[in-house]
């Protein structure tokens, strides 16, 4: 049994979600018999880690700072093995633009899109290229901040005149924005265990109830979304979803357990939207649901994540 530091909270916009994930993880680690120390990842993080001297750090942070390689780099310096992906893979997965480029190289299907930085608009007149984007990608479009989790700042553009506003909105959350073709279809999530022989947990479908898409509120409010195993998927699609998800996580170099978000379009094609290197562990999150459906339970998933904890170097 080990002394495990659960890193949670922090200053990111997803602080509240992280606190909920962290609490669930702490309880599970306790049930597994570990010595658990919760640390709020604030400006005293390094000092707290030095005081606590954990054998392993369980990262339950979401969003900037926790999911983008920052805290991972700190743990590398302190030589404390940590759960989830390493520094570089975290950075790649956090940035939807970088991810998309790597997916393309690895032949992982992902909706076509373009990325713009704030400077492109403020210094290079990129706004004049917006009509070309609409022409190339068609409507509707999905506009996302390049680096932000939990669907914050994401909007769907259905009218030609709304693209500028959607980009502006997304720029509130990141200086770089991704404009991609909106692929209508069913929202699936596959959690992958990137062990020596990677394997996938059961596919979970997020069925939003009365929401435009799986947005922030639908994600974290019980009853607003139904998470369930898709009943009517054929075995080939299930297998393909698992294979594509593992390929996506591999393309980014992920470690530990990652969650891959996909769309199954009306023609039965799968599209990878993003990889989450620190999947949510809240009561309404997808990974805990997948563990339940798989019949292995939440605690086992937490144990697996801990087993896969490592250092890059």
């Amino acid at each position, binding site marked *: 049994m080990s002394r495990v530091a659960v890193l949670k909270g922090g200053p990111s916009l997803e602080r509240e979600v992280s606190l909920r994930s962290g609490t669930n993880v702490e309880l599970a680690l306790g049930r597994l018999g570990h010595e658990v120390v919760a640390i709020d990842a604030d400006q005293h993080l390094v000092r707290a880690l030095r005081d606590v001297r954990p054998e392993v750090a369980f990262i339950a942070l979401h969003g900037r700072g926790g999911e983008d390689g920052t805290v991972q780099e700190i743990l590398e310096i302190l030589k404390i093995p940590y759960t989830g992906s390493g520094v570089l893979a975290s950075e790649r997965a956090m940035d939807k633009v970088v991810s998309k480029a790597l997916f393309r190289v690895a032949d992982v299907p992902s909706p076509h899109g373009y990325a713009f930085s704030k400077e492109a608009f403020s210094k290079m007149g990129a706004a*004049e290229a917006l009509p070309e984007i609409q022409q190339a990608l068609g409507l509707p479009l999905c506009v996302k901040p390049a680096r932000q989790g939990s669907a914050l700042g994401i909007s769907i553009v259905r009218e030609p005149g709304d693209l*500028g506003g959607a980009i502006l909105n997304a720029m509130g*959350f990141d200086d770089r924005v991704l404009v991609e073709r909106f692929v209508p279809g069913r929202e699936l999530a596959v959690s992958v265990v990137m062990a020596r022989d990677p394997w996938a947990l059961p596919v979970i479908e997020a069925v939003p109830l009365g929401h435009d898409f799986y947005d922030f509120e639908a994600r*974290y409010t019980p009853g607003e979304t139904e998470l369930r195993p898709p009943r009517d998927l054929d075995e080939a699609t299930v297998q393909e979803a698992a294979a594509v998800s593992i390929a996506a996580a591999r393309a980014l170099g992920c470690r530990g357990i990652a969650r891959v978000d996909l769309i199954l379009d009306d023609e039965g094609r799968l599209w990878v939207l993003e990889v989450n290197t620190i999947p949510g562990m809240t*009561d309404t999150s997808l990974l805990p649901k997948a563990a339940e459906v798989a019949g292995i339970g939440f*605690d086992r998933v937490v144990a697996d994540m801990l087993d896969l904890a490592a250092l890059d170097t």
Partner: protein
Amino acid sequence: MSTSDVTDNTGTGAPMPPQTPLVGPADAARYDSRFSALASGTTSSVMRDLMAITEKADIISLAGGLPDTETFPREIFDEIAGEIGTDFLAASLQYGPTDGMGDLREQIVSVMADEGARARADDVLITTGGQQAIDLSIRTFVNRGDPVLAEGPTYPGAAPCFTAYGADVTHVPMDDDGMREDLLEEAYHRLAAEGRPPKILYTIPNFQNPAGVTMSRERRERLVEFAHRVGLLIIEDNPYGQIRFEGDPLPTLYELDDGAGWVVYLGTFSKILAPGVRVGWAVAPPQVLRKMNLGKQAADLCSSTLTQRFVTEYLRRYDYREHVARVTGIYRRRRDAMLSALEARFPEGATWTRPRGGLFVWATLPDFIDTTALQAKALERQVAFVPGEGAFLDGRGRNSMRLNFSGVPESVITEGIGRLGDVVTDFIALHDALNPGAR
């Protein structure tokens, strides 16, 4: 910070390690299927989650609504606490009557008289803060789906009550003279023509939260006249009336109603004394008060007898108006600092109110700015405000924000507004870059 720490156990018996709960995420469904409709209807939101970060250190928060509690004299507190221990200990540790301590109800009548409102002690129900008075008054009158009128924007803290009881809120716009009484009449008639006349109007006439504006005397008179004519019940919430920086006090709607019984008045000691005592009150006709009393019995039996006694003894020994004058002076300087900073640092296209009292300024930005997205950007610069959408129940207010000046010293206000101004300026520049030729 450690969940494994066995903390000092100061109670009796041996210290015990905390129990490890056996409940995990998979058990969430167990509760989901049991939650009441009311609990299920109460949801988290982006805004509320973002607000959680504003409590972190290093963030300049213009988001709170906190009165100043630093300046309350320590020796006065000690004296009253000692007095309670000597003379009123047993009674102050005991349950009390649901409608509150008799002495305090008399004193509340005189506090109201200081604002020119004549009430009877028998009509006073003491509540656990002004918030309970709001909750009780809404639950006393509103059925699910009932039409209700409120200012737009309305008090963000009332919004969850409206939602919980299923009020169908129609917002009435405001200008510098407070709620547009003419538009209120229009809204009333429109709803009445649909066969659903509004049951109640919820309003904060003085230094409204969040807008900061005050209803003019003329509009107050017309409003009460209208209420009498059509039979509209008014819930007048007046937490800030005495926090006036300039100008003459205006009559309360309660006073203008002149005993006709069309106004339920809500007051609180939170701003004129301290919010920690959690003592507020409602004044209503006996028929209404009885129902509110029953509601309060179910909610908490009675408000804290200990803090009621504290307020009573304080009011008996000291002139609370001196304390009000002290905090009002502090807030006035802070308001001035905020208005100067806004003038200096907010870009063209932004407008804001100039409150003559209270705790808040309401700023409106160009309509293409979503202040929830702006909040994310502002938090990067370590400054926070309340996005306007929380003050509307119909999705409006997305381009506005509430700025609090009472809780932060002048220099910090200046710095915070400066940073916020930069963020807004950036956003506008970006918008212009995204819409070439729009200007």
